[in-house]
């Protein structure tokens, strides 16, 4: 494992607000988030939802790109196991997130910053709890160490890179 050397966050921890991205499947987590809103359930405003047709659409590059751009934590929310509308998109997403967690550990960002959960469209409280859980984890960990290393100064130049 590579130990990060840049360990002092560039911004003041007292004013720092974690930035979380939630990749949400259309058929469960996105609807659960919608339901949470309709039921006036409160969840932290730090999360930005990215709507996916299925978590099976989630490419590893999406998550890595988010972290490289300085996002503090990523939540991947897919259907309950056995409940994917595309048979096994959520199972594939699980394997991919496991691999990205391994990479994040290897490079020193930390696997804990990436969480995958399974839920149904009716499980608005679970969605809220999951957001709170990743937020709390990230708060405990502190800002993405790449921010301190200057990652958040703008999009890095990726010459020759292609969108997944």
């Amino acid at each position, binding site marked *: *494992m*590579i130990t*990060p*050397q*840049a360990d002092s966050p560039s911004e003041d921890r007292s004013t720092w607000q974690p930035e979380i991205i939630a990749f949400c499947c259309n058929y469960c987590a996105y609807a659960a988030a919608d339901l949470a809103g309709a039921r006036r359930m409160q969840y932290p405003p730090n999360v930005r939802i990215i709507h996916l047709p299925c978590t099976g659409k989630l*490419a*590893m*590059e999406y998550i*890595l*790109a988010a*972290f*490289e751009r300085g996002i503090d934590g990523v939540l991947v929310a897919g259907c309950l196991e056995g409940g994917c509308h595309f048979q096994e998109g959520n199972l594939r997403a699980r394997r991919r997130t496991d691999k990205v967690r391994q*990479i994040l550990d*290897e*490079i*020193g*960002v930390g696997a804990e910053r990436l969480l995958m959960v399974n839920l149904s469209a009716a499980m608005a409280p679970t969605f809220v709890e999951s957001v709170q859980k990743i937020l709390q984890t990230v708060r405990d960990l502190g800002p993405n*160490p*790449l921010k301190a*290393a*200057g*990652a958040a100064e703008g999009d*890095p*130049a*990726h*010459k*020759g*890179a*292609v969108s*997944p």
Partner: protein
Amino acid sequence: MIVASPKPIAELKDILERHDKVLFVGCGTCVTVCLAGGQREVGITAYAVRMARKLAGRPIEIEQVTIERQCENEFIQELAAAAERNEAVVSFGCGAGVQALAERLGDKPVYAALDTQFLGILEEQAVWTEKCLGCGQCVLAAFGGLCPVTRCAKRLLNGPCGGSTPEHCEVDDDRPCVWQLIYERLERIGQLDRLDEIVPPKDWQPSWSGGARKIVRQEHRI
């Protein structure tokens, strides 16, 4: 096809320690099919290496390009300008691809991003198995199209060892005994009599024993 697997990010980071601007070169043939060194894998590895280097306080600039085949000169020529712009080249090709780049991009350091494994096939999604050693003298005709030289852990040519079972090899429970498979296959194609013949020890001269091999086919030379 040639099957390879990615090196750990930490190893790649160490390899690139002395460079700040590198070119990652994917290969569009075997290693793309075995999901180790194609355009996507180059991209994923680039993300990881960039982040690892940023965290180490020494950002690295990575340019990415994937060519059709790294083992052919005409495709490598496309890389000349990009290689010129960078301090070093990281090949996501097999060992042949890496060496082809190193020979043709004379003044640039060229590094391997993959560990080349074997000649094999895809058994199911993301599962590859070795089928051929490239021993230089194919014996498949005598064994129903199944290679004991590659697939028998003891390279036996005259039947299975005493430790195998019909289900698996003695060496690895996860591996079938190729001699069981050879027997079943020869029975199925009505050639069990082939097993009556004693196979003499294999001639390893055409193999790697004398160092790297070379083939010249005069009829195709121009």
